[in-house]
């Protein structure tokens, strides 16, 4: 008698993402790369202004312990019209925070398609790939693609010249809005 060996069904890899709005456009980011979501109002008074003409997308920095977090205006980063930003994503294991208009929803994806080779400029750094969701194509952002190491170096040099007073150090909160 033959014993039929049960076939293993390959498990589908899924990834939880956050869909967010920036200047009216929808982008996705892996929820694993977002450590904390805060409202812009909750940071009132704490950010320090940054004025580096070569990096206009960064206008503020936040102190988190010993580190500086640079707030990137996502609309300016993607070359879009700046809109009213209401939330900040503090990224995990990163010195970048993202200023966004709002969160659309959280969902799960099963497939991330590589950005077609025809896209051959900065967008290759901006996006991890594209996903098809609810019959729409959504770019999935690369959390490491918002500031280059050169830009971080420049911002650090600028921040070093204008050190923050202790009152500007913000405490770490959990994942909350």
């Amino acid at each position, binding site marked *: 008698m033959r014993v039929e060996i049960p076939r293993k069904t390959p498990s589908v890899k899924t990834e939880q993402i956050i869909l967010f709005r920036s200047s009216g*456009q929808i*982008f996705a980011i892996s929820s694993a790369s977002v450590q904390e979501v805060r409202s812009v109002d909750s940071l009132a008074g704490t950010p320090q202004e940054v004025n580096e003409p070569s990096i206009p997308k960064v206008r503020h920095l936040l102190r988190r312990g010993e580190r500086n977090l640079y707030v990137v205006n996502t609309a300016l980063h*993607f*070359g*879009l019209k700046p809109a009213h930003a209401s939330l900040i994503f503090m990224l995990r294991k990163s010195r970048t925070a993202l200023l966004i208009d709002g969160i659309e929803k959280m969902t799960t994806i099963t497939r991330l*398609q590589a950005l*077609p*080779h*025809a*896209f*051959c*400029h*900065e*967008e290759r750094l*901006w996006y991890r790939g*594209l996903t*098809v969701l609810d*019959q*729409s*194509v*959504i*770019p999935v952002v690369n959390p490491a693609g918002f500031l280059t190491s050169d830009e971080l170096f420049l911002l650090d040099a600028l921040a070093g010249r204008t050190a923050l007073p202790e009152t500007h150090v913000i405490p770490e909160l959990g994942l909350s809005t």
Partner: protein
Amino acid sequence: MSTMDQIELHSLVLLRLGERRFALAADQVAELVAPSRVFRFAHRTPEIDGVIVRRGRVVPVCDLAEPLTGKKLHYRRFYLIANRQRGVSQDWIALPVSGECELINADLMPAGESDSAHVAAWISHGGEVIEVLNLNALTPGPHNEVGSRDFAPEAHA
């Protein structure tokens, strides 16, 4: 052997962009599809208009009418899905066309040194001399091989 037997005919797809016709090697054409929704997102490659979804795959849309005819295509009748070979990788690109496409066999005349990089060869068809397009030179990509030819037809004696 007759003279006709000695002529090597190539399969080509004739496509229309406004008033002009161009040809593409048939083995580079995946399919011809009706226009569908174009999705747009922020990017910095001006030649790319957006993307369409075809068989679950995201395909960039590149309007060749402007670089080839000087005018944007206002009426998109079909998308010709072309297959680009770049080194070992292949990718699809959707080319909006304004009329029916036609599969023909024709003898290729090699492109000359003075021809633009986008001309892979020439054909004579229906009383017209038509450019055979070099997609790699016309469409954006990481290694835009401007000056290279998609295929170099041998000169026929």
